[in-house]
């Protein structure tokens, strides 16, 4: 286990370094001048050149790159080109919002998806199965920004149960009201994935000899399904949950914008539109870190759900 973790962390460092380099280059290859954007369309060429100098954008690429790497190693990610505030401070201010949304959505998606998948599998080719397959297909087909608008129209505008502007944590009730619709929006789509994976994994496991043996021994059906079969079917489900966490963070960009929640998504869209290089770099590091950590946790979870898996 220890060796596994050390190896994974070393690999993660290499990944992180590669991402840092790639992001540094990509944001500069994309056309669009941050100085021009900051100063607006009435700025003359002299003012733009002066700002480029002040922001250090007139330095050669290697010079900027090594400066950036040295800063990153010291934990200094620079200041936003647009707001002048430290990048780390801006990210830390909104990161909890995105993490909170992602984890609540994940829990919701798993809590809905796994039982539905089990229900479909044990009722294979009967009404519950058809119903689950159809609804999960719908869930997969819906772009998150469309479902977000539909949820807002139904639950905020018509029923008036939840606010349109979801960024309030002043009281537990306000928090609950704020998180419900965005988490449902992301969680339902995730549930659709998990339902289908759980169903197919469980169907496969249900064909195994030990399930037949258990049934022959007279073990109650519920115990066979939930204790024996499901546990063995969980490995692909854990993989999907782990992989989907990355997608969730990506989908949260649109969800945060439509539900008007603070978060990394809003920050990255703003940074992209304004070509805020330093902010984009900092955010990419955060995104990479999250994906790396989730991957390590997924690997650890394999050993937890299936003791036959050896981490080495």
């Amino acid at each position, binding site marked *: 286990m220890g060796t596994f973790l050390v190896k994974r962390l070393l690999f993660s460092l290499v990944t992180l370094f590669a991402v840092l380099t790639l992001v540094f280059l990509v944001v500069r290859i994309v056309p669009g001048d941050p100085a021009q*954007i900051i100063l*607006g369309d*009435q700025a*003359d060429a*002299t003012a733009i050149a002066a700002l480029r100098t002040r922001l250090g954008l007139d330095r050669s690429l290697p010079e900027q790159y090594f400066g950036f790497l040295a800063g990153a190693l010291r934990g200094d990610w620079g200041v936003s080109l647009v*707001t002048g505030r430290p990048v780390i401070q801006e990210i830390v201010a909104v990161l909890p919002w995105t993490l909170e949304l992602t984890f609540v959505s994940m829990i919701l998606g798993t809590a809905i998806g796994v039982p539905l998948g089990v229900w479909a599998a044990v009722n294979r080719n009967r009404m519950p199965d058809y119903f689950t397959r159809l609804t999960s297909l719908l869930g997969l087909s819906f772009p998150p920004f469309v479902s977000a608008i539909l949820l807002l*129209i139904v639950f905020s505008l018509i029923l008036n149960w939840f606010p349109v502007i979801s960024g309030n944590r002043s009281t537990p009730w306000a928090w609950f009201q704020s998180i419900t619709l965005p988490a449902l929006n992301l969680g339902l789509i995730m549930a659709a994935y998990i339902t289908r994976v759980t169903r197919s994994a469980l169907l496969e496991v249900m064909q195994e000899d030990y399930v037949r043996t258990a049934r022959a021994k007279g073990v109650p059906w519920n115990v066979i399904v939930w204790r024996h079969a499901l546990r063995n079917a969980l490995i692909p489900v854990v993989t999907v949950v782990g992989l989907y966490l990355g997608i969730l963070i990506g989908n949260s960009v649109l969800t945060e914008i439509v539900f*008007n929640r603070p978060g990394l998504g809003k920050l990255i*869209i703003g940074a992209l539109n304004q070509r805020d290089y330093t902010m984009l770099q900092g955010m990419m590091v955060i995104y990479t870190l999250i994906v790396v950590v989730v991957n390590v946790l997924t690997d650890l979870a394999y050993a937890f759900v299936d003791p036959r898996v050896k981490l080495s």
Partner: protein
Amino acid sequence: MRVTWMAGAALAALMSASPVLAQKTTLVVGMQTQDAGVLDPHINSGTPGKALMNWMFNGLVRIKPGQFSPDQIEPDIAQSWTSSPDGKEWTFKLRQGVQCHHDGGEFTADDAVFSLKRASTKDSSAFSSDYSAFDKVEAVDKYTIKITLKQAIPSLLGQVMNYHGGNMVCKKAAEALGKDGFGKKPAGTGPFMFAEYVPQQYVKLVANPKYFRGEPKLKEIIYRFIPSDASRDLALQAGEIDMMIGRQEQAWVERTNKTPGLKVLTFGPAEMSVVHLNMMQPPLDNLKVRQAVAHAISREGIWQFRGQNISRQAVSVVPSGYLGTNETAALLPHDIAKAKALLAEAGHPNGITIKAIHTTLPGMMSFIEAVQAQLKRAGITLDITPVEHPTFHQQIRQDLSQLTHFQAARFPIADVYLTQFFHSRSIVKTPTAVTNFSHCKVADAEIDAARNERDAAKQIALWKAAQDKIIAEVCAVPVNEMLMNWAIRDSLDLGYELKGSLNLGPPVTEMTRFTK
């Protein structure tokens, strides 16, 4: 009978139990942005910041709330002003007793001098180049300042009004907080004071009880950042916001106006859509080809396409309503046959192809597609390369587009539009470049002469002559003007009639209030 009696009793009980509804005193505004950025009026040049600055800061002078024409200028912090006959020396007498926010003390000549010097310094201002004609700014006494110019400029008052660098900041707060700190906790003298900034969510302003025009009727303003158009609409309909920036779409205006309790305010300054023709590149280096392009575009057709209530036809190469606009300029009429004949005369009987780099912004994209369809009828193929908006801004400044569609509003004096778009100093890819995409230089003499002209009538005549020359040379084809649209709750009384706002959002003044 029994039912009626019970209903009556219930109603009476309800009426006696419900308190008198308190009048709403918090205004919640929805703005199309992820964040407002730096809250420093001398740095924040974006649309999302301008309206907000306007509610916190005063200028020495201001344009009357609800107007945008410079002939509507009135005193603000300054109560009077005079200028020398040559227009190089300006003296402003300040009001006494104007108070800086957060108990920052009285605003005096020292503050005004500090503010103007700050606005003209590159390190602390994005508008420093607007003040290049300033030679000296000095305090004559506690309530008098004198500005000395290197040369006379078309509108000195425009540089000291509550717009961009003319917003007056309080010296004590600006010095104590430093440039970065001031952008997080700005202090001016306006009707509303900064109270709180929550990243990506909102800025909260509270009423300034010591405002020199009287304490505002509203108690606070929550300025929410809501980038999604659909979410802003839903929030307005759900009653979570009271006022919001709208879309430049006729269908949106009609839909919102039909929603009970809401109304749309349409106001200037309009952003003019102009098609700039690169006169250095064939086939547009030929005047007949440029004339053919102008004849092929129907201003009326585009006006009907973009929406008759939210747009209007262009009248000249300077937007209508600006000081010095030739409102009856001789723009070439829509005439397909003439366009084809001119192309044939120019040696292109089978038509031509023009390349255009264009932004993917939906509103601008639909415009250029309509123009593309009109040009096609005259045998002109417009080959559009759509690129993302920041890329568009970079590439058109690199002179990479034969035809450039630019939509912009400027300070409403002809000089600004003419200088930035049609003076040779502003030609793209030169050291002094601004936004002259056509390489036009036919009216340099008139534009420069008008800048130094002290006689108002002669100055206007020079600006009109410049426009006539630019139109005759077809450096650009002005097509259409798009107005600003904001939706508000109809119980919100702004306190004035809104015809225009230089800060691109309705001014919220001490008189603004909810009627219920």
